[in-house]
């Protein structure tokens, strides 16, 4: 159908401006992989030059194997209806990312959440520390090395009767006699 003209134009603009690689995922979805120092300038560029004025979302993925956090800034343009993902990797040991709530105010909320949930430091971030969690003394709970199952088991009183907690999907398939699909096996608890 449409041959992704606008998407490619956007990709070329960003890539040629910053000498970074990126790709068009599908129509109306473009992603660029940037270095952590470039991110703010890229965001400013797409906001001011290309009219991508809406920071739709901002999240973090914990790549524990590579020892990295991946931060994803989701920016949207109401004019040409394209969402661009600006992705960057930061070190997992002492995670620190520059604070962009000067560009978008709503980034402040996301950054405070990440600071609490992943322990990523945003220098110059305003707002008191306790945002969602109250008096939390463990490692940040969204990090993958934090075993929430164990923590819940030893912190909260767990009522007896859940020892045989099974995978619902497996149980259903057993009863219905259908074989478990492979993707399901991958997710099962055993």
């Amino acid at each position, binding site marked *: 159908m449409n041959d992704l003209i606008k998407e490619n134009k956007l990709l070329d603009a960003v890539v040629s401006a910053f000498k970074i690689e990126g790709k068009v995922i599908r129509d109306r979805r473009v992603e660029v992989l940037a270095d952590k120092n470039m991110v703010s300038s890229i965001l400013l560029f797409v906001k001011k030059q290309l009219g991508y004025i809406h920071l739709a979302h901002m999240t973090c993925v914990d790549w524990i194997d590579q020892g990295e956090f991946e931060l994803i800034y989701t920016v949207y343009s109401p004019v040409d209806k394209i969402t661009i993902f600006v992705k960057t990797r930061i070190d997992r040991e002492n995670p620190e990312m520059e604070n962009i709530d000067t560009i978008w105010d709503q980034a402040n909320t996301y950054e405070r959440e990440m600071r609490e949930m992943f322990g990523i430091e945003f220098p110059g971030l305003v707002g008191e520390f306790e945002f969602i969690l109250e008096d939390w003394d463990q490692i940040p*709970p969204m990090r993958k090395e934090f075993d929430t*199952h164990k923590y819940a*088991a030893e*912190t*909260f009183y*767990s*009522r007896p009767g859940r020892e045989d907690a099974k995978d619902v999907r497996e149980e259903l398939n057993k009863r219905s006699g259908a074989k478990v699909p492979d993707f399901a096996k991958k997710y099962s608890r055993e």
Partner: protein
Amino acid sequence: MENDKNSQKIVDYIRNFSRKHSLFVLAYGTGCGAIEIPATMTSRYDAERFGIRGAATPRQADVLLITGYLSTKTLKRVIRVYEQMQEPKYVIGFGSCTINGGMYYDSYNTINGLDQYLPVDVYINGCMPRPEAVISGFVKLQELILAGKANNGEKYRENLEHYRTNQKKIIKNWKMPDYNW
């Protein structure tokens, strides 16, 4: 008249009868269960015919209705609200989250089992319990009240240390004012 057993019995029966038939519910709408309460009050299920009506503040309320999961952060507020209620006061745990954590049983931030922290009179299980279930739970509570078995307010006051230890186990820095009790 205190020594006279029969008259005391009669007085107690009258009191319990009135308590049974007039329950002011403070629905603490935590989690997804809160949406079932309006349905329960509306004209299809009409909880008011049992004398159940909403109360605006804990001072006026008899029943504390915990609808759904309780995060540790919310638990602190719920405890304060419960302690502001006047005796006799009842707690209804609503939905499987309050019973055993439900689908959040392994969450780092959601309690499993409300009765460790507050004395629960009646549990309504299900995820979510439908309004019929809610009404049946209230009817069960009313039976307990009429039988004079629903006196968990005193239990809470007597075993306050037990509950406090449980509460302080998960509410790390206990900044609750002491004028509640």
